[in-house]
């Protein structure tokens, strides 16, 4: 499948995802289905799916200790070791994992190949390339902030940190054109960053030929889905305002397990909600599981201590080896002739032969 087909397929899938609630609520008024049943089903799929997946991973053992060492090992006291990139114990591993999870440290190492030929002679350089890291970081943190900001819709009273976050997030863009002066609410910085990061993550898949080559529909689909999620959310905030009080009524109902289905929330909200439901229900079955997987990755979460602490393979089994006795039996005469020590003397060989 080439990339055009992949993109068409994925965007078609996302269009269908948008159309379903549009028709479902807009035309058929299936508010209970889209406001209550599907969100619950999606949440159950999300949590159960992740737990099942993680348990499934954990069921397979880690037979060997195979960290990727990215720095000097622990050795002599006079050699400076790198306890984070080449941890010797749990403490180092924890720090390494924190850096991986919170700062995407490995991705920060990224470089870009610059291959040239000068008079037929190859010249290879490894150029600065942090854009992927920047975009990934912006995307994930913006998403996190936006998620936390949404707490104001399903908590009462709204926790202080949510309000603080909201104020900080809105602060930067208070006076930014062209949104100001049209009677629009303040623009959130994270909304812009999220969309910018997503745009870049999508563009690089299309523009960079190597990334284009490896991309699957399973890469475009979640990108389109999250873009649609963000876009519907922004439309709701900046263009087609919905009744926030009623949205909050619905959301709090869901989280208190006494769901209600208030009337008069715009269909755009149901579209936004349905996209989210699809995203979280799709989550456990997709590459998005890297969220949980990173914690279990044996090249990152193990310490490099296998030379001084024994690591046991639970399914280890005895294997057939070629013993020294078998070896000596084959080469004994040659060994004796060469003056190499042998366990059984030449006489004993002769004896065995006689017996046979």
């Amino acid at each position, binding site marked *: 499948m080439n990339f055009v087909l992949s993109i068409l397929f994925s965007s078609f899938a996302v269009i269908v995802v948008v159309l379903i609630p549009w028709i479902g609520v807009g035309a058929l008024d299936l508010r209970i289905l889209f406001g209550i049943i599907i969100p619950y089903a999606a949440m159950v799929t999300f949590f159960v799916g992740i737990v099942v997946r993680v348990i499934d991973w*954990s069921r397979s053992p*880690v037979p060997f200790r195979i960290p990727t060492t990215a720095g000097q090992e622990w050795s002599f006291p006079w050699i400076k070791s790198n306890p984070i990139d080449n941890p010797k114990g749990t403490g180092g591993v924890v720090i390494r994992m924190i850096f991986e999870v919170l700062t995407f440290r490995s991705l920060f190492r990224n470089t870009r190949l610059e291959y040239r030929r000068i008079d037929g002679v190859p010249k290879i350089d490894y150029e600065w390339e942090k854009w992927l890291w920047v975009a990934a970081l912006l995307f994930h943190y913006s998403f996190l902030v936006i998620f936390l900001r949404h707490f104001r819709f399903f908590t009462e009273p709204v926790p202080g940190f949510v309000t603080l976050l909201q104020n900080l997030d809105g602060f930067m863009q208070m006076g930014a054109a062209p949104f100001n002066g049209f009677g629009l609410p303040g623009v959130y910085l994270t909304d812009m960053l999220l969309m910018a990061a997503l745009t870049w993550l999508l563009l690089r898949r299309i523009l960079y030929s190597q990334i284009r080559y490896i991309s699957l529909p399973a890469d475009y689909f979640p990108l389109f889905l999250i873009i649609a999620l963000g876009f519907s959310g922004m439309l709701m905030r900046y263009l087609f305002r919905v009744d926030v009080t009623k949205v909050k009524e619905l959301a709090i109902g869901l989280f208190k397990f006494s769901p209600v289905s208030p009337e008069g929330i715009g269909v755009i909200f149901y579209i936004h909600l349905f996209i989210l439901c699809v995203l979280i229900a799709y989550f456990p079955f997709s590459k998005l599981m890297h969220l949980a997987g990173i914690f279990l990755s044996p090249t990152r979460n193990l310490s490099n201590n296998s030379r001084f602490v024994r690591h046991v393979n639970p399914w280890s089994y005895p294997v057939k080896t070629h013993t020294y006795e078998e070896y000596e039996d084959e080469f004994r005469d040659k060994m004796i002739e060469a003056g190499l020590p042998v366990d059984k003397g030449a006489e004993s060989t002769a004896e065995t032969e006689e017996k046979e």
Partner: protein
Amino acid sequence: MADTPKPAETAKIDHYPSPFEKGWMNKQVEIKPGIYCYGSNPKNLEYVGMPYPKEWNPTEEDWKLPENWKEIIEEGFKDRLDKFRSLKLFMDICVRCGACADKCHFFIGSGDPKNMPVMRAELLRSVYRRNHTIGGKLLGPFAGARELTEDVLKEWWYYLYQCTECRRCSLFCPYGIDMAEITILGRELTNLLGLNIDWIAAPVANCYRTGNHLGIQPHAFKDMLEFFTDEIEDITGIRMEQDFNRKGAEILFITPSGDVFADPGTFTCMGYMMLFHYLKDQGLDITWSTYASEGGNFGYFTSHEMAKRLNAKMYAEAKRLGVKWILGGECGHMWRVLNQYMDTFNGPADFLEEPVSPITGTKFENAKTTKMTHIIEFTADLMKHNKLKLDPSRNDHLKVTFHDSCNPARGMGFLEEPRYVIKNVCNNFYEMPPETIREQTFCCGSGAGLNAGENLELRMRGGLPRANAVKYVHEKHGVNMLSCICAIDRAVLPNLMEYWVPEVDVTGVHEMVANALVFEGEKKRTTDLRGESLPGMEDEEDV
């Protein structure tokens, strides 16, 4: 054997797949001469009891697969998913961000998009998705899934034997996905059908029988070292006899057999021998073994089981001889196995003691459980304690750089010790650019059993990033010697240098140590271990 193209021809590499390609799943693999290695000879598989030995030729249509080959692979895949969390995880969590794409030396040197680590993994993942994920079962190609067919199997084989398990991709992967691990397990699958390459299968069979990859029999092994003893005597005037299979020695020494066999590894071997002799009076009690005469482990390029079977000899021999601990020579994948697998494979080695240097009294605490110390560590410790009289000016004709071997770098973190030793014996040391050394080091292009002759083009391509970095320091600093601590490096880098940077030669670190080592009562050195005249020494009269 395929003709290897000229460097200028090889250098025409296009790293940018055209935009309107059909998509990688629809392209049938083309097995190219110069890139693939010959299929395994049945006698080598039979000797170690591997399944489905047969005469076969990878370029022919018929691979003589057993009737139920598909079942065997699918069973084998499932079995490994249940045994290795790494495999399960690495099949599931890749987001195809592409960070690994241009990190692979084979991709850089060939431009073949399926040599991007992510693609190499996708070749297996696509089949995994088809058989083990809901999306793959329902949506097929739309979920990146495909049926396992003979063509797919051939594609696996072609690309799994174009990976040197160097782990450079795993360094850059945000989730630590390690293509080496996938290659190791993928190769296990090909071995279920008797589809190894002979360059791996033959050393494995040899090693099983004679104790070393090259099939050197005990008397010949001794002969070879005695030949080196003569050579050393010519150079130094001192006869440095070695011990073999001696019971009751304190230390057992094991090094890759490549060091015994071919230049320039032999000079490194002479280096070890000279060091051992030097330390004899200070209390070093060490023996070689003809049975455990291989440090490397081509079984590791076959399957975990075969790795374990070959590795078992080390502890078995240590136990038989009654030594206290084991010292290991300069080698790459050998140390990956010794560091990350040996104790798990064949331990606990409770009949051995925690290694202690008999010369300095230093306890090698980092080898507490495996009881095996790297000779570079051992020598570094001697130097730190001023136990060696060294004359680094004997290496003044060398301008040296150091190639970190993939395995000690990314499977151990053995970075400073060799540099410390080199700087003690050489006055001219220059580092290659930081993106090409230490944990970011580039493979020699011939590791993981791919150092055959028939795939020379692949090797020259895979080694290009390394050669390019050497060329850089050669042009900038006049570097003329590439040092390394790996027997495969010593065997393959000379070819690589000859092809891309002909002015640079290759050496092991202990060769340089021995050059600099000043012996009591030795004759004046007029040549180095290679018999090449030392500048400034040749015209002077012998004293």
